């Protein structure tokens, strides 16, 4: 889901940076005014977790790979704005140092992976956990949130890739950037995430939330300042 350099034309990647800038601003303000800034170590753990979880490539045998992001798990612990900040940091380090995702595509990738995923997933989690408040229920709510959050991010990524041939096709019919149309990018990305990678993300998120609730580290799921260790 990390769009590399050369897949998006300048209008798309510039617009993505423009859309991301105010979101980063709001995320910084939210983290400042909520307890999240006092939980600096937790935000650090969230960014590091997101980085390392994306290294676990999950194969679709004989075809392709994908990976979990941990975006909804992070949103449950530090809130969706904290997740935007933490995952954006991981994506920027990946792009600059490891060439995972392009530098022109940092805005686009942050929009999809650090914004769409935690917000969609967290909204689903909040809504479902209103109905499912047991230990198992919360884990299931987080898992479904993770599944839909990752799939939503895959969809917006597919939209960005799929509009490239519409925006940039030379007179000889050749694409200038990402070559596949929406009719290919959307079904492929939606399906592989709904059926495989989203399920991995859901299992990971559900199991961790279930385990955390019964552990000494359960405080991490109750974001309130008084619970933060000194």
């Amino acid at each position, binding site marked *: 889901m990390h769009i*590399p350099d050369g897949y998006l034309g300048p209008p798309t990647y510039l617009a993505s940076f423009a859309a991301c800038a105010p979101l980063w601003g709001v995320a910084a303000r939210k983290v*400042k005014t909520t307890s999240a*800034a006092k939980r600096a170590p937790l935000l650090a*753990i969230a*960014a590091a977790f997101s980085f390392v979880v994306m290294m676990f490539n999950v194969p*679709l045998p*004989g075809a392709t*790979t994908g990976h979990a992001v941990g975006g909804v798990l992070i949103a449950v612990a530090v809130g969706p704005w904290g997740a935007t900040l933490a995952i954006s940091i991981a994506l920027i380090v990946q792009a600059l140092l490891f060439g995972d995702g392009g530098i022109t595509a940092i805005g686009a990738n942050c929009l999809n992976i650090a914004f769409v995923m935690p917000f969609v997933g967290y909204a689903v989690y909040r809504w479902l956990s209103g109905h499912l408040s047991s230990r198992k229920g919360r884990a299931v709510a987080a898992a479904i949130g993770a599944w839909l959050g990752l799939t939503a991010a895959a969809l917006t990524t597919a939209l960005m890739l799929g509009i490239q041939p519409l925006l940039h096709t*030379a007179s000889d019919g050749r694409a200038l950037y990402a070559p596949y149309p929406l009719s290919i990018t959307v079904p492929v990305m939606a399906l592989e995430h709904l059926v495989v990678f989203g399920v991995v993300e859901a299992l990971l998120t559900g199991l961790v939330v279930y385990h955390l609730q019964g552990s000494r580290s359960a405080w991490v799921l109750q974001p309130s300042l008084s619970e933060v*260790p000194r």
Partner: protein
Amino acid sequence: MKSYRPFWIALLVMALVSPLGLYVPEWLEAGAAWGEWSLEEVKRMVGYAPSGMERLADLWRAPIPDYALPGQEEAPLAQRSLSYILSALLGIGLCGGTAFVVARCLARREA
């Protein structure tokens, strides 16, 4: 006792087993992630190199491309695993450090 320690330990364990993310796709012959192909792969798939893509693809030379330390890109899998673990540790340190500093700076401006 509330502590951050279990989380850092979990991250360390994840870094140590991260080569799974390298080996498993290799064994099952899974290729690149969809939409993250190299220019050569795109050329093979659609029959030409999109000109804009060709222009932008090598805009940035990452110092540790694909989590392989310099000179290790084509190394055998066992050797690449070591690179992968070191990359994971480096990434944890950098992401964690950056997020910590950002969060602390934001907190200070509030106080």
